[in-house]
C-alpha cells in the first residue's frame, strides 16, 4: 500500500507518483461527502500508527462540524521514538502519498489549513517534502480550488528543533504555537480544542499515508488484509545486529520469528538473540521464548505483554547487557522528560541513577526494588505517556533478565525476593485485554 516501495529512485517525484496511480483517491474524495469519507475510514478499522493505536475513523468523527472556528489538520512527522524510522522513509521516498493522505483528511473534516510538523533534524526529508509541495502548488493540487474543485486548501510546513516530547500530540500543539513543548492536560482533547484553541485533527505520517489506498480501494478491500481486530498492513522499522535491517511493510498478524529469521535474514554472524523490543523503545522487551509464535499485530503483541507502538523493531544481541540497554533508555527518558510532572521528572532521573549505580558494581537488591517501586508510581499518573514509556522498559528488563541485574549487584541478591518484588509491580505492564 506504500506505493514508493515498488518505485525506488524516482518515487518522490510527482510524475512518477501519478504514473503509479497517485492523486486518484483525493479526486474521488472531493466527489464524496465528508461523512462518507469518515465512514469509510471507520469501516477500514485503521488504527493510528503513531504509537497509541487509536481508531482513526473514530478520531476523525470527534471533530465538530458545526464549530464557527476554523478546523486544522496536523500531520505528526516528529518521529522521535527510538528505533523508529518509517516516517522518515515515507517523507523521503513517498512525500506525495503523505500529502494526498493529508488532503483527504482535511476534506473529511472540512479543514482549509493543514500543517506538517517535521522534527528539526529532518533536513533531507524536509527538502524532498518541500519539492513535492511546490510541485503540488504548481499543478493546482494545493491552493485555491484544488483539482479544479471549489475547495481551497493551504499547507504550512513546520519544523521543530530537537525535543522528543514535541511528538506527543498536545506537546506538538504548544510547540507549533511557538512555545515550549509542554503537553497539555486532557480534556479538552485536541479534536475539540487544539491548535490556537480550534478543533484539530492530529495523525501520524504513516496513518495519513494509508488513507489514499483505503479511499481508492474501499474499506472492504482494506479489511481483506490483516486479522479480525488488526486490519491492514503496518510499517516496521527494523534495527540492531540483524542481517537485513530497514523498513518493511507487513500484513498484520505476521509471525514474528518467521520475520526475523526469514525477511530480516536472522542475526548477524556471531551474535545470538537476547530479546526484541517490537514497537519502539517505549514498549516492553520480549525474550526469545516470548518471541516464538508471537504474531505482529495489536492483539498478538499484547498477548505477549508488549505493544505494536510505533513499530520500531529493535533486535538486541547477546553482546549487550540488559542493564546497559536499560541505562541507555533511562538516559533518553531522563533527558527528554519535560519536567512538568513530579513523578516523571524525578522518576526518570532516579531510575537512571540507580541503573548507573548497578552498572558501577555498587548496586543492591534494595536499589532494584526501588526501581520497580518508582516505576509503579510513574505509570498512568502523569499528564502524558512519557512516564509510562520509562516505567514499562524498567520493569520489563528487570523482570525478564533478573540474573543480569543481580550479577552486577554488590551484595548477594535473593532471586525469589526479587521475583516477588517484580510480582508486586508488573501489573503496570500491558497485557491481553
Amino acid at each position: 500500500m506504500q506505493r514508493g516501495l515498488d518505485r525506488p529512485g524516482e518515487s518522490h517525484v510527482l510524475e512518477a507518483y501519478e504514473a503509479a496511480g497517485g492523486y486518484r483517491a483525493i479526486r474521488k474524495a472531493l466527489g464524496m461527502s465528508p461523512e462518507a469519507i469518515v465512514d469509510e475510514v471507520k469501516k477500514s478499522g485503521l488504527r493510528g500508527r503513531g504509537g497509541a493505536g487509536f481508531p482513526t475513523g473514530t478520531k476523525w468523527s470527534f471533530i465538530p462540524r458545526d464549530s464557527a472556528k476554523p478546523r486544522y489538520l496536523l500531520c505528526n512527522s516528529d518521529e522521535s521514538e527510538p528505533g523508529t524510522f518509517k516516517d522518515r522513509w515515507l517523507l523521503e521516498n513517498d512525500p506525495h502519498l503523505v500529502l494526498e493522505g493529508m488532503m483527504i483528511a482535511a476534506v473529511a473534516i472540512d479543514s482549509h489549513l493543514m500543517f506538517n510538523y517535521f522534527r528539526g533534524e529532518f533536513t533531507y526529508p524536509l527538502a524532498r517534502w518541500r519539492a513535492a509541495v511546490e510541485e503540488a502548488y504548481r499543478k493546482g493540487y494545493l491552493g485555491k480550488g484544488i483539482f479544479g474543485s471549489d475547495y481551497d486548501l493551504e499547507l504550512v510546513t513546520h519544523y521543530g528543533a530537537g525535543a522528543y516530547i514535541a511528538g506527543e500530540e498536545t506537546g506538538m500543539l504548544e510547540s507549533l504555537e511557538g512555545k515550549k513543548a509542554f503537553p497539555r492536560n486532557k480534556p479538552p482533547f485536541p479534536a475539540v480544542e487544539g491548535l490556537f484553541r480550534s478543533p484539530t485533527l492530529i495523525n501520524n505520517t504513516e496513518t495519513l499515508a494509508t488513507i489514499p489506498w483505503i479511499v481508492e480501494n474501499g474499506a472492504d478491500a482494506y479489511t481483506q488484509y490483516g486479522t479480525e481486530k488488526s486490519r491492514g498492513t503496518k510499517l516496521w522499522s527494523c534495527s540492531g545486529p540483524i542481517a537485513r535491517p530497514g523498513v518493511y511493510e507487513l500484513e498484520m498478524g505476521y509471525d514474528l520469528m518467521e520475520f526475523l529469521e526469514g525477511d530480516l535474514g536472522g542475526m548477524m554472524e556471531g551474535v545470538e538473540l537476547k530479546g526484541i523490543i517490537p514497537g519502539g523503545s517505549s514498549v516492553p522487551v520480549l525474550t526469545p521464548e516470548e518471541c516464538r509464535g508471537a504474531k505482529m499485530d495489536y492483539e498478538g503483541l499484547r498477548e505477549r505483554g508488549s505493544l505494536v507502538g510505533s513499530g520500531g523493531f529493535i533486535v538486541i544481541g547477546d553482546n549487550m547487557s540488559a542493564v546497559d540497554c536499560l541505562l541507555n533508555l533511562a538516559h533518553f527518558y531522563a533527558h527528554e522528560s519535560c519536567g512538568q510532572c513530579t513523578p516523571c521528572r524525578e522518576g526518570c532521573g532516579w531510575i537512571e541513577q540507580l541503573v548507573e549505580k548497578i552498572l558501577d558494581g555498587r548496586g543492591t537488591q534494595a536499589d532494584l526494588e526501588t526501581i520497580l517501586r518508582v516505576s509503579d508510581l510513574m505509570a498512568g499518573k502523569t499528564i502524558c505517556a512519557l512516564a509510562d514509556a520509562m516505567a514499562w522498559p524498567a520493569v520489563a528488563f528487570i523482570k525478564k533478565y533478573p540474573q543480569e541485574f543481580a550479577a552486577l549487584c554488590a551484595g548477594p541478591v535473593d532471586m525469589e525476593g526479587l521475583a516477588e518484588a517484580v510480582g508486586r509491580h508488573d501489573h503496570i505492564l500491558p497485557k491481553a485485554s
Partner: protein
Amino acid sequence: MAAFTMPDEAVRWVEATIARYPDRQAAMLPVLWAVQREKGWISPEAMVWVGDRLGCSASAVQAVVRFYTMFDEEPVGRWKLQVCRTLSCELMGARAIVDRIRERLGIEPGQTTSDGEFTLQEVECLASCGTAPMMQCNFKFYENLTPERIDALLDELRGRVPDHDDVEPVIYERPGADAYHAMFPRGAEAAPSGAAGEAGR
C-alpha cells in the same frame, strides 16, 4: 552592545513566514532557525530581535531556545558532530564512534576544539536506526559509520567549507560482521554483562 541585524533577504523571508501562520508567535521556531542558520548561534541580542518580530518578550524567546536542544546559545565549531547514542546505535557500536572522535580531536562530548573546527555532541535517536551507528554533521546525516570512516571523514571535513544546502545523507555500505565485532572491544564472549564496566562510558 552592537545592534543585531539580519540581511534584507532573511528579513523578508522571516516576514513572509510569519504571515503564513494564524498567529505571529507560531513562527517562533522557523524564525529562530533563520537566525541560527545566519549567525551560527542565538545571542541575547538575537532573542530581543526575534521577540520584537513575534510580539513577545526576549525572555519568552529565551525559554524556547533553552527548551529545544538544537538551538545553540553559544558559538559552536564550524562542524558540529552529533553522534546518536540511543539504543539501536549503541547496539551497533556508537560508543566506538564517539571514542574515535574523542581520541582524534582530543575533546569530550559537549566540547569544541581550540581551533574552532569541531564540536562533539552526543544526541538522541535521529530516526536512522537501521543504518546505525550514525551521526548528524551540521545538516547532513552520515550512516553506517565505522571508526575508520570517522578517520577519513574528519580529514575530509577539515579541508571543506560547510554548505547548508547540502543535506543529502551519506549512507556508507553496512559494515560486515568482522567490522561490527571490532567495534566491541570485549566481544560477545563477555556476555551477559558484556558492555558493563571498562568497555563503556
